[in-house]
């Protein structure tokens, strides 16, 4: 983009970003957001420049006259956000002269935190890459067997391993490694069939792999000891693709509209993964080429973009992915810096939008081994739901939208420092108590807090079951601003952003839509399976803190179950990636399960509209579907937390 024009000698204008003072020079007509990305200033841009989120507000300190005029759409968003004078939206504002821009705190991207542990599961360890130590006989004139054949002979004699081939690049370095190590080497074999590394000396106890969960918002890598399955180091980062749009669909659109779009998106994530690899290896005190295996999970969009497969066709009905099965690809072909001959194992895809991340959730929660009927819900922009047991499994994908991840919510934000992650409201005084990430002064609300807020507002009667605010309450926290009711969670002086943090009527409506889609998905799967109720509900998804079980039940985000039959497991997709790294059996199981799950296409299901309508109520329009509801409401009343 901007930097590519450097050498053409055209006119350039300086932009300075405050308060960091970062600066750069760009050709006329560059947008402020593009310039910010280029110089490394992190500005929130949830909608990817489509003028729907209005989160990328910046204040123009100097050079107002050098900007593109305000369009009607921009003005509408600025008005809606009550932006002050000299505010502009960075994504659409171009500069044609020198400018100084101030990035207010609420527009800045925050440091991301993420759950580092999910469920622990007992898995028998059988990684794809195994290491074998060999002491080879030195060749001489009467024993002039080739180097590779010498290794193969020893593998057969010492370990009974046959039918092994070798990676071409490893072959090239092999003769020197053998001679420089006095013929004592450690050989890494991938899936019993290919030598992917030959290292000098005894390295059997140094066997590492990296499991990666590529989330739309967050990427997490787990450096794992392949012999024990233990995590040695964890690193996470915001998905670097967010600069091209915060949801999958805007990124796919970006790839469709720009000739080098896919290339850009793909190299962003590869660079990001190399950083995670480097960081975890640094923490563990090893080199990146000592990592010999890698597993990847992610939704279908992330999966395709990672592999640099055109994602266009999964964004259009009939939403067909390029492949369902798992795929093994040389890490070097993707530009990943693990050992040169190493492979990356990408987990399988169930159906269109039920991707490798959901398969990972399944192998880490194992509903397919149960007698009982389990419902596994992975909450995200695309909520994936699986219902079933050992005999039958069904899945669907519910377009919940990004509300539960903080987008489209007035003070919604990602799980970063200062995000409100827990909220309780006193039934008598209607005063809230909240907890923020890092115990910092609040600057927004993240997913777990948003679900809590909806549940508490409903439980205390501030919001009725149809989502409408009750304005006849004796508290200054419930008020009407420009005809829109809202509840004040934090007063301006408590926050770091200098104005009240509220939940508005519109926020509740967004939550109703998201919750309605997820809940309708569950109800339709239950109907298809012929069930009135399920035996257990497992809620996966990481939005800062674990999603509160009571809150999820209170608003009917999940179907009715007794409280001891619901479990919140955090980032189950990441756990699945780790399991696949250390167990070949689980890799096979993943492929088998992915093909066995029957996929229900929600949007074209004849009952969807009806179920969606009913499911938008708290907890549901048909109260008989929530027999435990009163009980759940009373729990909070008494201050019981589990």
């Amino acid at each position, binding site marked *: 983009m901007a930097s590519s024009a450097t050498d053409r000698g055209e006119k350039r204008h300086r932009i300075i970003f405050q308060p960091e003072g970062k600066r750069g020079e760009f050709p006329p007509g560059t947008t402020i957001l593009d310039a910010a990305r280029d110089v490394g200033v992190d500005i929130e841009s949830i909608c990817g420049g489509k*003028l729907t989120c209005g989160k990328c507000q910046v204040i123009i300190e100097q050079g107002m006259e050098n900007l593109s005029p305000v369009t009607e759409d921009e003005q509408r968003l600025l008005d809606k956000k009550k932006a002050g004078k000299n505010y502009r939206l960075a994504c659409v504002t171009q500069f044609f002269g020198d400018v100084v821009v101030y990035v207010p705190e609420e527009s800045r991207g925050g440091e991301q935190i993420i759950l580092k542990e999910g469920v622990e599961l007992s898995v028998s360890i059988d990684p794809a890459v195994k290491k074998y130590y060999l002491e080879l006989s030195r060749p001489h004139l009467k024993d002039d067997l080739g180097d590779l054949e010498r290794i193969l002979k020893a593998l057969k004699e010492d370990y009974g391993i046959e039918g092994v081939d070798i990676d071409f690049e490893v072959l090239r370095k092999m003769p020197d490694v053998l001679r420089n190590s006095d013929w004592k080497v450690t050989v890494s074999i991938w899936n019993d069939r290919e030598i992917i590394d030959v290292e000098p000396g005894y390295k059997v106890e140094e066997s590492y792999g990296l499991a990666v969960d590529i989330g739309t918002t967050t990427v997490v890598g787990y450096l794992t000891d392949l012999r024990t399955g233990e995590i040695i180091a964890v690193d996470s980062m915001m998905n670097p693709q967010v600069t091209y749009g915060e949801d999958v669909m*805007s990124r796919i659109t970006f790839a469709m509209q720009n000739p080098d779009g896919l290339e850009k998106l793909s190299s962003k994530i590869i660079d990001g993964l190399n950083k995670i690899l480097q960081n975890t290896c640094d923490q563990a005190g090893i080199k990146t080429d000592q990592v010999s295996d890698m597993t990847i999970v992610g939704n279908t969009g992330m999966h395709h973009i990672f592999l640099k497969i055109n994602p266009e066709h999964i964004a259009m*009905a009939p939403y067909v992915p390029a492949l369902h099965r798992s795929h093994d690809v040389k890490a070097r072909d993707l530009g990943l810096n693990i050992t040169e001959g190493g492979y990356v194992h990408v987990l399988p895809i169930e159906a269109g939008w039920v991707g490798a991340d959901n398969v990972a959730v399944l192998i880490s929660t194992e509903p397919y081994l149960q007698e009982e009927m389990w419902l596994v819900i992975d909450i995200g922009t695309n909520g994936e739901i699986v219902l079933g047991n050992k005999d039958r499994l069904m899945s669907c994908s519910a377009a919940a939208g990004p509300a539960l991840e903080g987008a489209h919510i007035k003070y919604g934000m990602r799980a970063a420092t200062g995000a409100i992650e827990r909220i309780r409201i006193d039934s008598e005084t209607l005063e809230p108590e909240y907890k923020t990430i890092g115990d910092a002064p609040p600057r927004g609300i993240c997913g777990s807090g948003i679900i809590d807020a909806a549940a508490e507002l409903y439980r205390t009667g501030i919001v009725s079951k149809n989502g409408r605010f009750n304005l006849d309450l004796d508290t200054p926290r419930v008020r009407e601003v420009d005809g829109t009711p809202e509840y004040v969670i934090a007063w301006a002086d408590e926050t770091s952003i200098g104005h009240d943090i509220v939940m508005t009527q519109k926020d509740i409506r967004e939550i109703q839509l998201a919750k309605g889609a997820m809940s309708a998905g569950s109800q339709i799967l239950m109907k298809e399976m012929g069930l009135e109720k399920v035996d257990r509900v497992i809620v996966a998804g990481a939005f800062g803190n674990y999603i509160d079980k009571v809150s999820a039940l209170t608003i009917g985000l999940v179907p009715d179950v007794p409280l001891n039959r619901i479990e919140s497991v955090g980032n189950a997709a990441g756990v699945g990636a780790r399991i696949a790294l250390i167990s070949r059996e689980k890799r096979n199981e993943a492929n088998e399960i992915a093909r066995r799950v029957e996929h229900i296409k929600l949007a*074209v299901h004849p009952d969807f509209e009806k179920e969606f309508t009913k499911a938008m109520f708290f907890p549901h329009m048909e109260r008989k579907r929530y027999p435990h509801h009163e009980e759940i409401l009373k729990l909070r009343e008494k201050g019981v937390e589990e």
Partner: protein
Amino acid sequence: MVSEEKRKEILERLKKGVIEFDEDMVKEAANEALEVGMDALDAIMNGLVSGMEEVGNLYEKGEYFVPELLMSADALYAGLDILKPHVKAEDIKVSGQVVLGVVEGDVHDIGKNLVKMMFEVAGFEVVDLGKDVPLEKFVEESLNTKADIVALSAMMTSTMLGMPKVIEMIREKNPNAKILIGGAPVSKDAAEKWGADGWAPDATNAVREAINLVKGLKREIMGDKSE
């Protein structure tokens, strides 16, 4: 001839049934309207549609949300099914023809269905092409039906990109048709850039637009009687 008192009472029940999304109440009142010999068009316009207008007001005020709209629509259709076959042909003044559908690649049609209903109660003849509609089909149907309005819906950013193609094709072959576009990812700038005649940023705003349309058209059809 039914007494004015009885007429008012039945209209009130039709209206209330729609507002309170009570399908049974609507069906009962609609059947009774026919039994007592009420004019079917009167029952539709001053009962059902009048109720839907009130639903629109409640929606605008924020009292009602999408689920209430959908349920009211169901109640309205329950009444229409009973009353429509009895409307005298000469009373039907078609306000215009609309061809509408969700563009290729997209199967999300709740918003489109709401808009469709509003057009129908406004007296439009609606040709619903459904969802995942091939782009050429919009053009073909707009020519076949001599549609006054072509309405395109998309819920996904990726599928929205089909809209400018349809607009271009229609402009070329059927320059008189008005084109309305709507759906979550559509912006006013996009609508202008692509040369659409009207837009709505999301399904709910499209409904609002349609509701206004209903009001305007109803006045046209019924004259002062409905006011």
